[in-house]
């Protein structure tokens, strides 16, 4: 009797084999589920430059209220093969004036780093991003100057945002034009 047969003799009584047969990686299957269940608000769009690759795509956010109304913000989303054990990596491709984004496009959003859990989905990430543009958080800033402007003088901050979105400068920094 060879091993396989021995194993089956020993184990067969325990449980009949199920039939599941994945053809794609576990991360892939999970992304597939997340994507088909995305609940995109009218202010958000996805763009898959290569539709065959579900692990890399873009998000375009066009806020319809708040400080950033009228802007169009682009993000890249990179999902590692360890998803959902690891959070997706999200970066803004434009240089913008925002308390929670730095000038390199890094985004400070808790669920993208320390508070990520495998039970969260891509939908949660999109909701988080949208909220960040509706209610920037000046108390845990990434761009300290922008945060300070927001804490000190909301009107001035609003002016700065508008100016920056037109491609203007705030202080010594000039920003990308992001008007829709």
């Amino acid at each position, binding site marked *: 009797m060879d091993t396989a047969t*021995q194993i089956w003799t020993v184990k067969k009584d325990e*449980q009949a084999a199920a039939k599941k047969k994945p053809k794609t990686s576990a991360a892939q299957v999970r992304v597939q589920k997340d994507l088909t269940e995305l609940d995109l608000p009218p202010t958000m769009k996805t763009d898959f430059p290569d539709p065959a690759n579900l692990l890399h795509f873009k998000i375009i956010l066009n806020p319809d209220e708040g400080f950033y109304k009228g802007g169009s913000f682009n993000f890249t989303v990179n999902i590692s093969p360890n998803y959902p054990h690891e959070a997706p990596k999200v970066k803004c491709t434009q240089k913008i004036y925002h308390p929670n984004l730095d000038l390199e496009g890094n985004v400070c959003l808790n669920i993208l780093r320390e508070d990520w859990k495998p039970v969260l989905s891509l939908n949660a990430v999109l909701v988080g991003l949208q909220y960040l543009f509706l209610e920037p958080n000046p108390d845990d800033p990434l761009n300290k100057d922008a945060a300070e402007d927001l804490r000190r003088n909301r009107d001035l901050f609003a002016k700065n945002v508008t100016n920056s979105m037109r491609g203007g400068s705030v202080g010594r920094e000039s920003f990308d034009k992001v008007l829709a």
Partner: protein
Amino acid sequence: MTAIASPPPLHRHPSLTSSQDQARQRYLSTPDAEKYAAIDRVLDRRGGRTHEAFVGGQETKEFLRKTCKILVIGAGGLGCEILQNLALMGFRDIHVIDMDTIDISNLNRQFLFREADVGKAKSIVAAEFVMKRVPGVKVTPYYGKIQDHDEAYYKSFNMIITGLDSVEARRWINATLVGMVDEDDPESLKPLIDGGTEGFKGQARVILPTMSACYECSMDMLTPPTVFPICTIANTPRLPEHCIEWASVLEWPKAFKDKKLDNDDPDHIEWLYQKAADRAKQYGIEGVTWSLTQGVVKNIIPAIASTNAIIAAACCNEAFKLATTSAPSLDNYTMYVGNDSIYAFTFKHEKNPECPVCGGETVDLKVKKGTKVESFIEMLTENQRFQIKKPSISFGSGQPLFWQAPPQFYEQTKHNLEKDLDELIASGDEITVTDKALPFSLDLRIEFE
């Protein structure tokens, strides 16, 4: 008594004295029954808890020593120990895969390597060493990635042992082995024995793909990777780790736009260390050292020979038991903690019905030829068994057949609604259905009638 192994060629080893050579020849011509007396005890005799299916004796020994082909993934801390143990236990056809080369920091535990081997491929050096030390064993190395091989390769083994430090590689081999199981072919089930260590702690488990909990079933048991909020790193560092992450996550990409950080390059670590140390000094934070910098950036897990020995031995013991049925196999997870006296805990990890790899089910569904995708979807939503409302459908490959979201894919696939399902897939093909109401996903095997 007949020796099972064919006697090795009787040529004299060049570096041996004549008396040593005589001793060598005498050993090589010793019958297996004498050499393997210790192992034969448990193969010739039955234990109190040995399964009824145990045959023992010559047949079992022949399988172990002649037929059984075993794959070891990883030739690192666990891998070195595993190779040693398998060879000594009488496995003679061993294969080993590793994509790494030997580093000086491996030498405190990866005992098949010496200083002169630094920079060489782990799998090759390990295989040569074991063959030199244990006569009669054949170890076939592969220097590369597990993903380089296809199902046919993995099908050629009787079982697989992994000693990996990567979650990703474990997920891959696990999913591959689960995917290979064909219920009509018992040979397609390849037991997977997995070990892991961290400091004085470790775990070993036996996975019988599709029959027991798989690696993916227990992903939630893993400790999530340590990550700090970006704003903390950028603006309110408090710990030395925050300064190091600042240097690697934020400063490196700024300073070197197109050069990727190489964790193994001491010059890169040096740069990060300097940056982090400067920042720490500026903020009055103590504790940034070279060693901590390297530890944080590489996510170094402490590792010692003794823990690897314990876990690798536990894994190989399971391999031996599976190959011989001389004792029941581990069902199915054992945890070992050695820092506070000795504590081991064995338990059965239950299958996760929502596991994306082995959970869910494949349902056979008969569909009339000429059914439009749109009416097929309607059928699914009306089927009481599935309880779904807004299903998306993917081909077996994962590519969209009809997706409700995101809009780009909806636009791209909505024309399929008008098509006949049998235009898109062949009879017997599998499709995947995802829906918010499903715990994970549902696989359907479609037969057209």
